[in-house]
């Protein structure tokens, strides 16, 4: 690989369902300024800017153009990417490539979604092939409902386990001042009594629609050490897509499919000599649109064996004070401004590695972390972060 790349600036807005006080460009500008402040840089130091957003969610075509002034992009190079839920992952990959390639020393990855502009589920429904599966109209929720069914069937997990995941997420979110849903849940009963959205998924089993933005500043090795006292090294990434028309998009009842998570994590673990994930990696921030999917992802990312995901949550292993904390930030089920969501995963993992996560800092020392993105028909983007190289 060419140049080493480090995260030297992290900024995000607070995330919430409605932002009337700002328009979309101003909201993204908040995160840009927060990242600049974190890196102690001025906008002049940023050599290039890359944007990630799902246009149909806000109904704004070329949104990067509309915000050029508010984010300081005028006169700077960059472009926008769109790969569904993994968009925020793709934008980190583009910014990473631009620095690793030597084309730039400093690049900004900007993910954003202002979901009070439109109807997210409607926009996701528009992802169906219009002259094929028209009228399916269950959006992403329907797919994750099927995933939950498949997971129950193959692993033997109970609804209680999904509720435990939700409770853990809320504990993290309540300690994270930027998180969207901070419910203060006291027991799993509160989760299991929430109404059904798409059977068997309940309201509290699924992620919200959030407004928010998250920005990372990436720098080459020679610049990184000058910019930040605690650069976090983005040592590896992998992006894996897949065809969308097999049995289950997010959950495979046949047990025969290779998942994108398998391909992504196996490549990353192999390249980085990781043979025992929970021993060699200290923490993960993963993209779990539903609590059921989180348990699924534990298995697909090889945090445990197949069918054992629910045991990790039952034993408290993935709690904030656990042996292998997952989503100390509260995760996607608490906060989901889609284009920003994967950038937040990387940002939160980096904050943990820096030890700067404040109230939601994991109990154990975090030297190495994983961040993932999920989107489209179960696409994966995955990143490995380290304190030292």
């Amino acid at each position, binding site marked *: 690989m060419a140049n080493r790349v480090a995260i030297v600036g992290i900024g995000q807005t607070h995330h919430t369902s409605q932002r009337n006080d700002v328009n979309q460009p101003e909201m993204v500008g908040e995160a840009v300024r927060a990242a600049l402040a974190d890196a102690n840089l001025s906008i002049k130091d940023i050599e290039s800017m890359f944007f990630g957003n799902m246009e149909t969610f806000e109904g704004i075509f070329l949104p990067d153009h509309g915000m050029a002034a508010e984010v300081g992009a005028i006169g700077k190079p960059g472009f926008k990417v769109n790969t569904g839920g993994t968009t925020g992952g793709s934008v980190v990959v583009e910014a990473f490539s631009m620095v690793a390639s030597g084309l730039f020393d400093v690049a900004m990855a900007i993910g954003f979604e202002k979901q009070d502009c439109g109807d997210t589920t409607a926009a996701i429904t528009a992802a169906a092939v219009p002259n094929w599966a028209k009228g399916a109209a269950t959006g992403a929720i329907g797919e994750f409902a099927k995933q939950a069914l498949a997971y129950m069937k193959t692993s033997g997990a109970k609804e209680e386990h999904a509720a435990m995941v939700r409770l853990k997420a809320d504990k993290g979110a309540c300690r994270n001042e930027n998180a969207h849903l901070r419910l203060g849940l006291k027991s799993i009963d509160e989760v299991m009594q929430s109404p059904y959205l*798409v059977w068997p998924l309940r309201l509290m089993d699924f992620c919200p629609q959030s407004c928010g933005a998250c920005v990372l500043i990436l720098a080459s090795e020679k610049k990184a050490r000058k910019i930040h006292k605690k650069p976090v090294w983005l040592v590896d990434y992998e992006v894996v897509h897949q065809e969308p028309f097999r049995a289950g998009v997010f959950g495979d009842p046949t047990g025969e499919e290779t998942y994108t998570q398998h391909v992504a994590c196996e490549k990353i673990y192999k390249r980085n000599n990781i043979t025992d994930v929970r021993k060699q990696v200290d923490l993960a921030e993963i993209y779990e649109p539903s609590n059921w999917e989180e348990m699924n992802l534990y298995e697909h990312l090889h945090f445990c064996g197949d069918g054992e995901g629910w045991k990790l949550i039952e034993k408290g292993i993935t709690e904030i004070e656990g042996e292998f904390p997952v989503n100390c930030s509260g995760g996607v089920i608490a906060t989901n401004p889609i284009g920003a969501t994967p950038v937040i995963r990387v940002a939160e993992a980096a904050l943990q590695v820096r030890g700067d996560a404040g109230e939601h800092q994991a109990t154990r020392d975090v030297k190495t972390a994983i961040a993932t993105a999920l989107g489209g028909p179960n696409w994966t983007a995955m990143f490995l972060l380290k304190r030292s190289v």
Partner: protein
Amino acid sequence: MAKEPEYIRIAYKAPRPYDWSTGKYLGKVYAEAKENKKLVGNRCPKCQYIWLPPTPVCPKCKVDMGWDWAELPQTGTVYQYTYLVYPLWDPHYGEKWANPYPSATILLDNGTFYRHFLEEKDREKLKEGMRVQAVWKEDYNERGQGVQDILYFRTIEE
């Protein structure tokens, strides 16, 4: 407490029209459905899997599919199902809409997975493994909408 300033929001209600083409592969499905009430997919020359919807390239083997068509059985087994509780905004219909029929992943009897709706709306009677059969729109003039020419899959006793 300071009074919140008046915040303005600007609303747009403009449908964007599209003329989506089936292309020739999906067009073949439309033709067979309309003319013969047949469900067809195309077969990968390498893995022999029959793809629905059809595609020019096998997604898994990544080879050219050629033009090898196979008729699919219209009976199968419900592999998974779910149903919508709240109406959701459907961007194609342009209104809030809840399909009254449960959505299912059906394993057709040849081993191809296919998603469609189930006629059975009684949630108590839905179960995985139930046997189902396609029910077509009978009026020729109403067909011509591809797989929407199949109204739903009906529970069958065997």
